Structure formats: C-alpha cells, structure tokens
C-alpha cells in the first residue's frame, strides 16, 4: 500500500549513474533542466526525449519499477497537454487546423501540448527517476552540503540544514512503515479507512495520526539523546568518513551533458522546424 510509493526511493545498483559523484549528478541535473527549458524546435524536443530515454536505460533501473513510479503522474501530463491544446492563442491571421462549434484547434496548440508533455516526462525521468533512484539520500544531502558550503561565508548554517534534511529523509521510510503498522493494527480492530464521505474518512484517520505523532516525537527525542551521546555538536570541525574525489566517468558524463546542451542550442538555431 503506502510501501508501494517508489518515486524518490533509492534503488541500489551498479550503473554509471550509481557510481558518479553526487555533486556532479546534482549539477548535471540542473544543466539537464536548463536544457529542457531551452528546447524550442521540434528536433530539439526529439533530442530531449532521446537523451532522457537513453539516460533512463543507462541507469539500469527495471522498466516495471520506472513505470510504477511515473504511473501516478501520467494523469498530470495528460491534463496539462489537454489544457494547452485549448488555451493556445495563435498569432493574428493563423488558420485553425479544424474547428467545431466555438472551439478552434490550431497546429501550434497541438505542438505546445506535445512539447509540454515531453517536457514534463523528461523532467520526471531525469530528476525523479535517474537522480533519486540512483542516489542514496545520504549521498544527496552530502552533495547539497558540499555545493552550498560557500554560503558558510555569509554565516548560513549549511551543515545544520543538510543534517536536518538527512534526518528528514532518513525517517521517511521509517514513518511510512510505522504508518502501515498502525493502520494494520487499527484495521485489526475493525477500523475502516476506505469507505464513507470525506469527513468520515478524515475522522477515521485520527486513530492513526495520534499514535504516529506520539511516536515521531518519541523518536526525535531518542535521536537527539543518541546524537548527544556521540558528542554531536554541529558542523564545526566535523570530518567526513568518505572523501569523494572526481573520477574519469564523472568527466565523461560532464562532456556528455555539455554536448547535450550544445546540441539543443544548435538544433534550435539550425533546424528550427515546428518551433512554437
């Protein structure tokens, strides 16, 4: 049930993306998002789709897992596409492709819808699937801390932020498991979470939320004590167990993504077919 939510989960593996330095991965994700929003011509969108599918395959995550992850979002993609078809306002004097009643459908509208769908799909595949499925939460927050560390100069508590994030991420699966367990226990006493109106369902969740909150606070207390016992006193002078160094495939990926952005820009300029 709740355990079946896979988006944002880490799947251990052995692909090039699993081995890449998480800092590089984060930066490349930003570059990748920039590339997605730079695309204008039809050919550029084709390249986007191609590269997204390529990196998804390269991540070595099983197709069934990926489909399960993006299934809930397909709805969003479709709705966005439909809205774009109808809300497209064409330049003066464009002939509609076809029209019935008061609705005009333009070629531009259809293209915008298609491009929007590709964009969202690429975003999900690149950030939701490739980045989070191949990067453990710890590596991710480590990378964020490292990338944000220049902000320490202006006295921002970067380490504390990243520690909070690590802890929050660390406890998501624990809390999901706990929720599952408490729901099962209340179901065993005849609780019914899946019938009745909105108010009845919200009320039915009370026997789950109260124990969940209590245990979350208890956990927080215990964690604080455990950290205190191991002499945790914040980030100052703290060293890392694993030192990350850049390796050849990090550079290969950087070159690959650099070529990707350059490709998108060049295609926009030289092959501007079906540009919206």
């Amino acid at each position, binding site marked *: 049930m709740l*355990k079946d939510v*896979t988006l944002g989960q880490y*799947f*251990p593996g052995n692909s090039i993306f699993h081995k890449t330095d998480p800092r590089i991965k984060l930066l490349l994700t930003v570059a990748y998002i920039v590339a997605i929003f730079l695309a204008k011509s039809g050919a550029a969108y084709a390249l986007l789709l191609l590269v997204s599918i390529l990196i998804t395959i390269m991540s070595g995550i*099983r197709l*069934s*897992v990926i489909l*399960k992850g993006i299934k809930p979002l397909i709805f969003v993609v479709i709705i966005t596409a439909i809205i774009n078809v109808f809300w497209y306002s064409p330049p003066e004097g464009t002939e509609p492709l076809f029209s019935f009643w008061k609705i005009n459908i333009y070629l531009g509208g259809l293209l915008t819808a298609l491009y929007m769908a590709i964009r969202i799909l690429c975003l999900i595949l690149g950030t939701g699937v490739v980045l989070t499925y191949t990067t453990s939460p710890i590596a991710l927050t480590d990378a964020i801390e490292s990338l944000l560390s220049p902000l320490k100069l202006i006295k921002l508590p970067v380490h504390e932020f990243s520690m909070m994030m690590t802890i929050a991420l660390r406890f998501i699966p624990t809390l999901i498991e706990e929720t599952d*367990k*408490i729901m*099962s*226990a*209340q*179901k*065993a*006493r*005849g*609780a*019914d979470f899946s019938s009745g109106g909105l108010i009845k369902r919200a009320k039915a969740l*009370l*026997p*789950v939320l*109260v*124990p969940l909150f*209590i*245990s979350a606070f208890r956990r927080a207390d215990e964690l604080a004590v455990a950290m205190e016992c191991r002499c945790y006193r914040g980030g100052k002078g703290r060293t890392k167990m694993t030192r990350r160094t850049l390796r050849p495939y990090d550079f290969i990926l950087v070159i690959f993504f650099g070529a990707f952005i350059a490709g998108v820009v060049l295609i926009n300029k030289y092959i501007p077919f079906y540009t919206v």
Partner: protein
Amino acid sequence: MTAAELRNVFYTYSKGTPFESAAVTDVSAVFESGMITGIIGHTGSGKSTVAQLINGLLPVSSGEVFVCGKNIWEDPKKMRQVRFTAGLVFQYPEYQLFDETVYKDISFGPKNMGLSEKEIDERVRDAARDVGLDDALLEKSPFELSGGQKRRAAIAGVLAMRPQVLILDEPAAGLDPRGRREVLGNITAYRNKTGAAIIMISHSMEDIAEYCDKIVVMSDSKVLLSGTPEEVFSHADELVKTGLTVPQVTKVLCGLKAMGYDVDTSAYTVDKAEKEILRLFGGEKKC
C-alpha cells in the same frame, strides 16, 4: 475443533520490485479451539507474517486461509467480520493507543462492530477485568499508564471484541518478568474462560514451553516442526541446528544424556525435569 487453518499458504513481499522476498513458503498449520498454539522462530522467519495472514491483513499469494471453517478470501467484503472473529494483537500494541481515556480506547473495537452502548460498556469492563486493569484506570489517559499497564490496555482493546481466535505477536516482549507472567496469565485465563483458540508468537522458548499446548516452529519462511511440546523439544538437535534453542531445563537433561545417563530428554518445564532427575538419581525432594 479447528478454529483457524492455513493450507499451503505462500506470501511474497514487494512483488515485482528489487526488494521482493518470500516471507512465507508453503505453510500449513491447524489451530484448535481451547488450545494455545505457539509459533516460534527467528527474526525474519515469517512468524509475524503468518499472524497477519490469518486475519486477512495481508493477502495470500497462493493457498487458503480458513477461520471458523470459512475461507476468508471467498468474500473479501466480509473481511471486517473476519477481523472481529480473529483478533490480532500486534507487537508492542501500546504504541497504537490513541484515545483520550483507556475506556474509549478499549471501546474502539466494539464500536466498530456496531454494538449497542450497553453491550459495549459490558465488554469494555469485562475486557479490562480480563487483563487485570482497575476500574479506576479506565478514566485515565492511556499515556499516563505504566508500560505494563499500557500493554494490558492495548490487549484489552482486542479482547473486547471477544474474538474466537486470538493472535498475539510477542505479547510479553520488553516486559519485566512480573509483567510477562501477568500478561501470559491473562491470556491463559481468557482461553480458559472462552475456549478461544490462542495463537502466540514468541521467541522465548521458556514462555512457549510453559504456556503452549502445541508448537509450530518456523525457520526460513517454512514450518520446520510442529506438534506438542514433547514432540517438538525431542528434536533438540534440529532446533539447535537452525539456531533456535530448547528450554534451559531440557538443555540440562540433554547434557546428562551426553554424559551417558539414561534420561528422557523430552521434559521441558522445571517441574517435569525435576521429576525426571529425581527418578534418575532417586531420593526425595528436599525443599
């Protein structure tokens, strides 16, 4: 009389993901009314999964589950009824207490059954008495109780549904010796009073040996041995091989046998072992 039965049940967790793992493989077991059946095994041997399969919280991957003679997956719409008949007390049930007062918390189950006010009141007080909670405690917040009292309040919440099959997952885990004895005593008393089938999951061999009429030993998601305590503990070698142990007194008898004494190693409680040793060496009980 057979109260609950598993027939060739399989269950797999997270099917179709890289985290897929078999939790229960071809398990068949019969649980009889008026008997306490212990399920024992290592962490991860599948015993808690079995508990949730019996009352339909987890769907079987294949195989059949019968409660009071009915296949529970025949009509999934009636599953709530099954859960009232086969009451399940989870591990550390005190973490599921939620209501303002102990009374209200215990009445959660009976209320869900749709009983009348009067019937609910009677059942709550009855269940509280069954687990030895004072009437004065009923009006307190469950969060003010001590650990042992919380545990008993949570068990009362399930007893108030008067289940004919009562499943308890590690009911005595984390309690002090006195708390253990009280809780396990309450459970035995409930069995004597109602004739319900009790299924008790534990990894304490001593508790199982002392309180259970029948034992099912699980190992690696399969049933390894099942039968009366005498039968099961006579396979001491097999139990030890899978990393489980036998009650300490049985170990003493096995030790004696290894030293060459002609001793029957099937005794598993202190009383029986004492008799056996006295028989062997002769003489009277001194104190």
